[in-house]
């Protein structure tokens, strides 16, 4: 009974720090070379120590794994490499006991072509599941729908020899789209949700959610029918399962994404994709404008909703939500080797993107944690793990977690050759140099810093709940803003430049208050009527709590 481990709190996700886990790559509990739920249970103490509130699992369902498990062949079973449904239940229970919630990826849009539903649909054109997928005699319908996996797919239609018809797929051709116009498909998907919610799961990240429906003359994204169905899903969840979360993955502009919040009656959270490349752009250009601009373009959202923010995740650093010029700039700066590009993006981890820069890593985390939204961390990035651009597709950012400098990076006791992917061994990012054990022992490590930083953020609900007010200064290398919630006022100032900077901030509205730096609890001079002068180290940042003059120290 998951609710027993938590205080009732329908808005928990607004203050949460999320942590994304690739189960296969986290820890091998049964020595077969592949991560699993037993292994994940073993590492819960570590995650609890790190201070994250919610674990987000990449797909764990039965699957032929032609797309990292996003090609599901049975929604009601765990992939045998990861364990059993019973292992999953035990994992959720153990996570709850440690105060962490669990959400998992769920793909509603499509299934694997191996799924019995699809096999039945193609074999029996008059059968019960004949219309569970989108079939057509021509491959010319819906021409306005773009092709997403440009590198591999020539069309959204693929011909099926058996049924002698084309089937619709927005992603790989082995991932046929389900036909949500079928009431039975709609009901079947609700049954999937109930199954996992009954096992105690705290919610879902809804993968590829904009593409559920198709309509002539549209690009097949964000259709009204999709929103209607998602509202139905939300109502079902609210009615029977309190405090659960629906997180939409819609790689779109904020104006479109906000529709997924509805009037607070659709998804609780949605990822804010466009802010991510702009943080990297701002860093490289040493200019705060891209961040200010995208936040200005971000509409207000209902009070019971939240943005999900991230620096990196299991996919490529997507560049769909930037202009062509900006994309060229990003490729030029962050993907000098063409191998680093994938589709419209860059397949690299955080540390190599930042050339291993520690100041840069801290600065980007500070910006991420200061923005209105809930941060999502990607496994391995907390120790500054590297990637392997020579591996295919997105495998380069999905290599085994580095637990120690021992054999197999402490990830598995299987034979080296048996590992699903080999851990990194290069001299800079290899597991001898970058691992949890060593960083735990080193007070100045990135891991230890991030643990302190997560704790700091969680001490201040303002970061999850507060308002955001930009504070642009004449010095455009400075990204400064103010977050306010009830009595808690926080001033965040970040220096994007490689050089030390001085900035004058207009804080007249807070005259008489005393900025107290939050990491070291140092009181700065009180704010007066004149512009407030600060100097910042290269790539440095300050977070201040603004206190009334008489309660400093």
């Amino acid at each position, binding site marked *: 009974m998951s609710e027993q481990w938590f205080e009732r709190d329908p808005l928990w996700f607004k203050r949460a720090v999320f942590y994304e886990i690739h189960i296969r790559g986290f820890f091998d509990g049964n020595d077969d070379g592949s991560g699993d739920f037993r292994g994940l249970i073993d590492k819960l103490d570590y995650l609890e120590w790190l201070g994250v509130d919610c674990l987000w699992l990449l797909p764990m369902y039965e699957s032929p794994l032609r797309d990292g498990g996003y090609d599901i062949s049975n929604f009601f079973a765990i992939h045998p490499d990861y364990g059993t449904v019973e292992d999953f239940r035990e994992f959720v229970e153990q996570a709850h006991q440690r105060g962490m919630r669990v959400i998992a990826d769920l793909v509603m849009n499509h299934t694997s072509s191996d799924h019995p539903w699809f096999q039945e649909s193609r074999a029996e054109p008059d059968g019960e599941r004949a219309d569970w997928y989108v079939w057509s005699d021509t491959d010319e319908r819906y021409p306005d729908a773009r092709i997403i996996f440009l590198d591999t797919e020539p069309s959204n239609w693929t011909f099926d020899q058996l049924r002698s018809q084309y089937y619709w797929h927005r992603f790989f051709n082995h991932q046929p789209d389900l036909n949500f116009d079928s009431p039975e498909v709609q009901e079947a998907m609700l049954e999937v949700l109930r199954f996992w919610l009954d096992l105690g799961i705290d919610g879902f990240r809804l993968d590829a959610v904009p593409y559920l429906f198709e309509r002539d003359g549209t690009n097949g994204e964000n259709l009204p029918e999709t929103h209607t169905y998602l509202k139905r899903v939300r109502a079902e969840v609210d009615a029977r399962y309190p405090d659960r979360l629906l997180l939409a993955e819609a790689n779109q502009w904020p104006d479109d994404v906000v529709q997924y919040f509805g009037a607070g009656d659709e998804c609780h959270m949605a990822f804010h994709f466009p802010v991510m490349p702009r943080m990297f752009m701002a860093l490289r250009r040493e200019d705060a404008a891209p961040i200010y601009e995208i936040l200005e373009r971000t509409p207000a959202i209902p009070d019971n909703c939240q943005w999900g923010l991230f620096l990196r995740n299991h996919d490529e650093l997507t560049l769909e939500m930037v202009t062509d010029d900006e994309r060229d700039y990003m490729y030029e700066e962050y993907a000098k080797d063409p191998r680093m590009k994938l589709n419209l993006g860059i397949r690299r981890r955080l540390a190599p993107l930042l050339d291993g820069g520690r100041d840069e890593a801290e600065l980007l985390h500070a910006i991420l944690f200061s923005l209105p939204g809930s941060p999502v961390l990607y496994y391995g990035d907390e120790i500054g793990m590297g990637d392997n651009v020579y591996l295919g597709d997105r495998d380069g950012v999905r290599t085994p977690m580095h637990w120690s400098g021992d054999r197999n990076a402490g990830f598995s006791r299987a034979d080296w050759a048996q590992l699903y992917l080999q851990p990194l061994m290069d001299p800079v990012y290899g597991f001898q140099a970058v691992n949890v054990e060593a960083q735990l*022992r080193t007070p100045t490590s990135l891991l230890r810093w991030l643990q302190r930083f997560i704790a700091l953020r969680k001490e201040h609900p303002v970061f999850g709940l507060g308002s955001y007010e930009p504070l642009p200064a004449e010095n455009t290398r400075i990204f400064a803003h103010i977050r306010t919630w009830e009595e808690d006022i926080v001033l965040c100032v970040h220096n994007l430049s490689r050089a030390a900077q001085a900035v004058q901030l207009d804080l007249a509205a807070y005259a008489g208050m005393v900025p107290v730096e939050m990491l070291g609890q140092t009181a700065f001079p009180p704010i007066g009527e004149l512009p407030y002068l600060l100097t910042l180290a290269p790539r440095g940042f300050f977070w201040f709590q603004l206190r009334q003059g008489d309660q400093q120290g």
Partner: protein
Amino acid sequence: MTVDQNALIEYVTRQRWYGAKSRPVTHSEVLDRVTIRHADPTLTLALVEVRYETGAHDIYQLVFSDGTAGAFDELADDASPARELVSALRAGLTLQGKLGVLEFRPAEDSTALSRDLGAARLVSSEQSNTSIVFDETVILKLFRRLEAGINPELELLRFLGEHDFRNTPPLVGWYSYSGGPLTATLGLLQEYVADGIDGWKLALDEITSAPERFLDRLERLGEVTGEMHSVLGSDPADSAFAPEEPSVESLGLLTATVDEEIARVFLSLPEDDERLAPIAGRSEEVREQLRLLTYAGSSGRVIRTHGDYHLGQTLWSRSGPEAPAATAPTAGRGAGTPAASGGDWVVLDFEGEPARTLAERRRKRSPLRDVAGMLRSFAYVATAAHLAADGDVPEDWEERARARFLDGYLEAVDPALLPPGEAAIERLLAVFELEKAVYELRYELDNRPDWVQIPVAGIDRLMQQAAEAL
């Protein structure tokens, strides 16, 4: 009976056992109620929810009677209604509520319920629970703020009883609720040690009046503690108790946690405080020692532990536990220990640290954590005796107390539970003691500045000891 919400809030928030004194309450209601006695005066056990401004909530246990107006809890001033609870335990009743079921269960083999109970009195010193002693033979403990899951005290008392650990008062019965609002242990009944002397008070008295006798007693306490850990780690078939190998990171996580705490505490140390002089400015040195101490290989195994172990959790019983102490495996060697001359230690209160969540309190840990807690309480009692003393506290008392306790402990405990070798044991023990001392330092700075010298001396001593050991 209908319940006026405001009156209920007013009542509950005034009670000593009410935990959330500073949180604004927005709502309160009776979630479920079960009538235990139908005859007049009726008695009803109620689960009362208190909801706070933030949407969070707590559930409390109250015992209503329809007979009295205005009072919501019959056990607030009068212990006698609790007799009904004991009767229900004796009868093994199962009672149905609106949303769940209330189960009263007597412990197997217990003879304490074989006769009717007479005089009942409330124990006045309780904070978060309510305890009632009947006829000076059994004690009923009601948990007021309820937490989901099995209570660790019930779990440990049952286990220790089933595995013939004699130095804790046997469990007599318990009652619990399971249903919609939560599944929780509500109370337990245990034999009462009528002739027990609180270990802390005995220490205060004997440090000056009979220091050698008390050192003998401490060696016996070490043995009892070692036996307790051996028993707790003795059943690999019971998954809740089976000893486990700690995860690879566990020592690293512990080090990191203690290290951060040291850094934080030293950051907040007041300057120019003479009492802090022995450790002032030595933050980096302390952290360095901590790192050196944790370069140990194995850290032993983790088991269920007492969880909040110190002198105040022990009693010296003149008559000793019901079975003769001679049955204890190590008693033969203790010619000089008082166990041989009648009387023995009794360990109490297996609830764990009250501030921690139930899941945390049930977690397996190194048994040396309990040992560290006890050793730290020797430092406290020595200082307290010194402050209060009429006579003198022998100079080296604490050192000798530690040595005698550890002698007894290491003799009795199953060595498979500990790190291999004396040096590794000392190092891990020092880490846990440092963890405690740093916690104490923060606590005393905030609450009892006069006691600050105790953790300061503790940290100073650990630094010297570590320097010698390494």
